[in-house]
């Protein structure tokens, strides 16, 4: 599914608009960056409440095209800058992580086990 379509269906607030025509099929959720570094499937959509600038570095490492901040968290200016520089799409929503993952699952995305 195209990132632009995911963001449209979620009604998410988009902070960085890079690469919105890319396709994604897999998702991952977590706030411990060491865990995401170790376990995220490459190319996954990443759902998190973590808005530290290091999120961008981990996204680059795992080739994550889209970071979705849940529970109304907004990105720090540093995170926005880094995502823009690295061409990572960044959006936020008031939905909590559970609800957000449910919506993504309904759209046809899955976790790493089924990919």
């Amino acid at each position: 599914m195209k990132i632009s379509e995911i963001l449209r269906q979620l009604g998410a607030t988009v902070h960085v608009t890079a690469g919105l025509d890319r396709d994604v099929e897999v998702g991952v959720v977590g706030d411990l960056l060491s865990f995401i570094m170790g376990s995220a499937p490459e190319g996954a959509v990443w759902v998190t409440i973590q808005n530290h600038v290091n999120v961008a570095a981990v996204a680059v490492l795992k080739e994550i095209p889209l970071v979705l901040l849940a529970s109304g968290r907004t990105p720090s200016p540093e995170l926005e800058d880094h995502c823009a520089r690295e061409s990572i799409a960044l959006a936020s929503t008031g939905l909590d992580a559970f609800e957000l993952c449910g919506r993504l699952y309904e759209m046809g995305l899955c976790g790493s086990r089924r990919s």
Partner: protein
Amino acid sequence: MRRYRADLHVHTVLSPCAELDMGAFDIVSRCRRERIDIVAVTDHNAAKNCKAVKEAAKESGLEVICGLEVQSSEDIHVICLFPDCDAATAFENWVWSLLPPVKNRPESFGYQLVIDKDNNIIEEVPFLLVQGIDATADETIVQAHKNGGVAVLAHIDRPVYSYVAVLGLIPENLRVDAVELSGRLTKEEALLWREKTAGRTIIRSSDAHRLDDIDRGKTTCFLLERPCFEEIAMALRNEAGRRVLWPWE
């Protein structure tokens, strides 16, 4: 300049997770038995027992540094050390203004006791101290410096409550004064961390929650003129010949 042995991370009975043997005089005598010269009192999000340990240490030859172990909004632990009790208290006021109003349940979490130098209980802190405050680790470091202190990333080798576990890596421009490794690491493990944190000052501490945890083998040697906060701060920054010796030598 001479060597001083320091343990810059020790809890007291104010930390709910600490054993009730962590009284003021008890910590002082245990440190002396282990030939430790400098100890920092670092309870979770609190500095209220620094004074008791400092007073209990008078004429013992043990130098007591006032500090706190802050838990940030991301559940990262940061050791913050200050020149004196007043500076630590000012910082503690900032921490408490950001602490969520959750009550402590001593039967689940443990007692949070403020004591005097003779271990008399002055008060019990009613709200839970082991929670993340409403400030990030990076903001906590900035605030510690504003209050005249130094900041050390606690036990970065651990899978929980550590900067590296939560945020993956330590940004090069993070103005933290040192990083702490756990006393239980082997020399080989410690060397791997030294490679990973190239250029950072590394200290080893006990993170003692009971008296038996206070151990000469879980400390760090400092090269200082005098055993005091100012000299330790200089050593962490590697200034004017003051320095931290590699703990796993």
